């Protein structure tokens, strides 16, 4: 029966080409606009660490200006000072813990024609790879000792290894960073979480870093952050050591706590640390710290911005207009075919049968509109990619879930649009039409 209804529907669509095209176009444009915006919002709302959402926490401490709270949604500075980060690293409570920040090095090779280039770097403790589940292709991370003392070792991204060593296993080889030799200890596989949940300070949709360097090299290279450095205290101590021991926040800090008991213990540890610092005259604000799960961290950092939400709502309203439009057009079309339905009713078709037949006709329009809508949203996403100048290439693309959602949305919209017209036509009295014929 359904097959028959579908063939009836296709015949009926061909019978009124202009109205049918208008309806399909309305649904297609509605779905296209909606899916363009919803895909962007959906991709921006991804949590690459969802599988570890219950065990990972971003750490924030309130050591900010006694006169004024930090200018963030939870009034805690996003990052830690170097002195607090190194103090927290001494705790053995977390299963893993990462202190890190963004940096950059010039990369050169001895006896090579390769043009020097600047590599985006992450200065981090060795737990980074385990904590964030970064897969290694070859080798592994540096010894934990390298996080405390200057050891010139480096982990390369797959792309960097391809670029510098032509993809060969370069573990054990040497590259020069800022003119100093570093030994390659590992090469990670392609790893590019988007949004970049582990570092939302530096454009959340940027690619992940090209090289990874141990945390113990700050003093040797006098490393400053290539991300945000925020300060409130002007009491400058002398030299680079003064900067390290100062109140500027520039270190991002994550911990892995596998159980509630472990988390409680760590909270006690943080409280103890702050109390101890208060005794030394630091942390003059009320005692406050925060441990945020990756999902909470994404919300706190407003990765999905107000602008995106506005576009989301507007595009849904747009789809609503398209649905109302389709209702009006379907009503017109069905009423025009009322005599046909009258004849079918007279020949014994039930009201239900007429209703179902017309609903199927609307969903055919929905499927066609949905398919066209997917093409339109691909165009739309292409347009947005262009407008964003390559900044959001990773997120302006549809996955299969979004393609299914597009078709689902289109069928839902057209079923909704078809409901009233189909009901209306199934209720008409057949005798009127039989008389006039």
């Amino acid at each position: 029966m359904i097959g028959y209804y579908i063939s009836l529907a296709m015949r009926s669509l061909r019978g009124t080409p202009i109205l049918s095209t208008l309806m399909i176009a309305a649904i297609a444009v509605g779905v296209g606009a909606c899916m363009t915006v919803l895909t962007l919002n959906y991709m921006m709302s991804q949590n690459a660490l969802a599988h570890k959402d219950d065990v990972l926490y971003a750490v924030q401490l309130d050591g900010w200006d006694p006169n004024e709270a930090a200018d963030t949604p939870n009034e805690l500075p996003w990052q830690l000072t170097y002195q607090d980060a190194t103090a927290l690293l001494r705790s053995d409570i977390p299963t893993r813990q990462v202190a890190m920040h963004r940096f950059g090095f010039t990369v050169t090779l001895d006896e090579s024609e390769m043009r020097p280039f600047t590599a985006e770097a992450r200065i981090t403790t060795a737990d980074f790879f385990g904590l964030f589940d970064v897969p290694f292709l070859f080798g592994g991370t540096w010894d934990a000792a390298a996080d405390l003392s200057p050891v010139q070792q480096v982990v390369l991204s797959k792309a960097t290894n391809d670029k510098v060593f032509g993809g060969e296993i370069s573990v054990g080889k040497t590259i020069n960073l800022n003119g100093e030799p570093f030994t390659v200890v590992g090469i990670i596989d392609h790893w590019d979480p988007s949004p970049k949940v582990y570092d939302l300070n530096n454009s959340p949709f940027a690619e992940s870093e090209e090289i990874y360097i141990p945390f113990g090299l700050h003093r040797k290279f006098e490393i400053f952050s290539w991300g945000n450095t925020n300060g409130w205290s002007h009491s400058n101590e002398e030299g680079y050591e003064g900067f390290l021991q100062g109140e500027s926040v520039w270190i991002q800090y994550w911990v892995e706590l596998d159980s509630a008991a472990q988390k409680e213990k760590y909270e006690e540890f943080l409280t103890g640390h702050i109390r101890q610092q208060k005794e030394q005259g630091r942390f003059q604000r009320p005692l406050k710290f925060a441990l945020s799960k990756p999902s909470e961290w994404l919300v706190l950092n407003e990765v999905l911005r107000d602008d995106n939400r506005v576009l989301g709502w507007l595009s849904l309203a747009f789809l609503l207009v398209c649905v109302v439009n389709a209702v009006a057009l379907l009503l017109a079309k069905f009423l025009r075919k009322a005599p046909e339905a009258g004849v079918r009713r007279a020949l014994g078709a039930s009201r239900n049968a007429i209703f179902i037949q017309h609903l199927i006709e609307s969903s055919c329009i929905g499927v066609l509109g949905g398919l066209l809508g997917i093409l339109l949203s691909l165009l739309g996403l292409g347009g947005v990619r262009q407008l964003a100048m390559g900044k959001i290439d990773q997120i302006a693309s549809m996955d299969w879930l979004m393609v299914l959602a597009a078709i689902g949305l289109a069928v839902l919209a057209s079923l909704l649009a078809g409901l009233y017209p189909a009901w209306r036509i199934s209720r008409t009295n057949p005798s009127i039409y039989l008389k006039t014929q």
Partner: protein
Amino acid sequence: MFELKPMLSALWRNKISALLIAVQLALTLAIVSNATVIVQDRLEKMARPTGIAVSDIISVTFMPVPVNYDMAGAVAADLELLRNMPGVVDATVTNQIPLSGSGSASTYFTEPNQEIGGENANYYQTDEHFIDTLGLNLVAGRNFTRADFDVIGPNDTYEPRVAIITQKFADVMFPGEDAVGKYFYSGGDGEPREIIGVVERHLGAWPSWSKAGQVAFYPLLVTGNHKRYLIRTEPGQRDTVYKQIEEKLAERDPQRVIHLDTLSKRMAQSYISDNVMVKVLSAVMTLLTFIVALGIIGLTIFWINQRNKQIGVRRALGATRANISRYFLVENTLIAGAGLAIGMAAAQVINHFMVNQFSQPVLSIPTLLVCALILLGVSVTAALVPAIRAANISPAMATRSV
């Protein structure tokens, strides 16, 4: 003369279809008017004057490879070379690139040793060529001289003695007064910085910052592991000069990595989200209006087909073509008018939500009215073609199938 009574009773019989058109127009008005204020707001934001000769400026960032590098010497030699290149007006060294979205800011006070109640300003460490290079307009005081210029290491403690600030920052720090010759201070600090000049305008590092335009400049070079230059070219020469810069700099000193950009590109990148908002919303508005217009055309054609016979009878009874067309146009105007009236209320409600939840701009009544009028025009235009066609129905239709 508008045959309102029969029209209303005819409409009442087709109330669902009429209602559907009215609802479409109401929703459309609510969306379009709210989108319009956002677009207006963003366009105004992007059109703000920067005070900078953006389209003639090239930015250079370079990082030397060797560990012990004579940064001060390299900067002096590079600037000498750049300033002497044909097509180059001037060049300067800077810690950050204006309008690029990255920069430094600090809190400043009008009295020494204060810690609360300061004003924020974006600051630049540059040299006496920055006014010419950026194309700024010095409105009071004097430019830096070579004697003001200092070179320090990245970890040296240092307090600048002189500064040039923007008019906007001057107005914030010293409202209603002449800022030249006044002193200002870094927080908790007693070292005075003398304001020696005021430039008319410089939008600073972050165009979206609430304090954009509050900027201070210091004559200072902090040596570090990377440095930046800004180069202003003769109008129209930018792209020619751009191609030569990397080669010239590499020729002088190959031991470094050089990155070039145009300031236009950096500024466009800073405005990406505004630009995306404007383009996407404009596309939505256009498509929406188009879809609604198509819907109105479709429905009007359908109605007229339904009423072929009625039209034929009216024509046979002496109604002119103009009467018939007018009937459908007035009918359309009635429906559209009702829908747009509802839409105006809906637009206000939605705007309230947008302002409170998403900090978007407030919708003004004139904007709302203009949007409503435009949609009314679209609706009537959409009904026009079918209405004129209706007038061509021959009176013979009336007698055909009775």
